[in-house]
């Protein structure tokens, strides 16, 4: 593991309304496992599918080993007009060549979380949910799977 990019998403993160504590935790996990890795956290992305796809696409040009996207993994605006727009998982649908998907639904039929993991060329790409504990757990599960 030599090169990793972390891409936080969310208008509230970009505006500084919410602190990006997930990136810090993900970077901590990566450096614990791969002390020599070069980890880059990009500026937060707006909740727009095209913007997210464009950003992943541009980062892929640097041939990283892993790209981690944070947030935008639920149903979001599809269920509540007061919630943010969740486009990270659909952006990965559009971007990845081969992928595996795991979805969690509530008993009310709402999509609570959709994790997409796949490859683009030699780069592994996956997303984690925005809430800290879930982001931490999802990232730990991903790296445990690599070992």
């Amino acid at each position, binding site marked *: 593991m030599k090169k990793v990019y972390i891409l936080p998403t969310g208008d509230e993160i970009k*505006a500084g*309304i919410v*602190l990006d504590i997930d990136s810090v935790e993900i970077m901590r996990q990566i450096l614990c496992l791969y002390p020599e890795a070069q980890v880059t956290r990009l500026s937060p992305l707006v909740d727009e599918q095209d913007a997210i796809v464009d950003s992943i696409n541009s980062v892929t040009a640097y041939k990283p080993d892993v790209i981690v996207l944070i947030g935008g993994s639920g*149903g979001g605006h599809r269920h509540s007009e007061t919630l943010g727009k969740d486009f990270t998982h659909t952006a990965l649908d559009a971007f990845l060549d081969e992928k595996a*998907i795991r979805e969690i*639904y*509530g008993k*009310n*039929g709402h999509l609570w979380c959709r994790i997409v993991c796949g490859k683009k060329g030699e780069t592994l790409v996956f997303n984690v949910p925005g809430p800290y504990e879930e982001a931490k757990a999802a990232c730990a599960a991903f790296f445990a799977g690599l070992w």
Partner: protein
Amino acid sequence: MDSQYVIAYADKSILKISGLKVRGLNTRALEQLLFKKLNTFVRVIGVTGEQIEMDAYNVSPETVRKNADGFIDAIALAEGVTVTELVSLSCSEAIREVDFNKIPSLPNEGCAKERWMQKS
């Protein structure tokens, strides 16, 4: 493509607190504060500069409403939150179960709720 899903049979209500000024919110710290207050899990699911929306698991809306002032006091302690005189708390009813057998299977054509609503 490998795709699987699970259904979480958890009860939750949605809490909305408006009339706030939010800047630099540490969501984890807020969730921990409310965990101590409610003795159950809370997850921040949506934040604007004036409002915080949260999922509260395994707690009845009545309990939340009865303790509204206590919750607002707890939220006021969170890093990045300032309570204004317009602060108010609302809580939805607990979520209702839908029959997943009636949800059409259309992968990548919207989430299950959308498909269920389209069929209804």
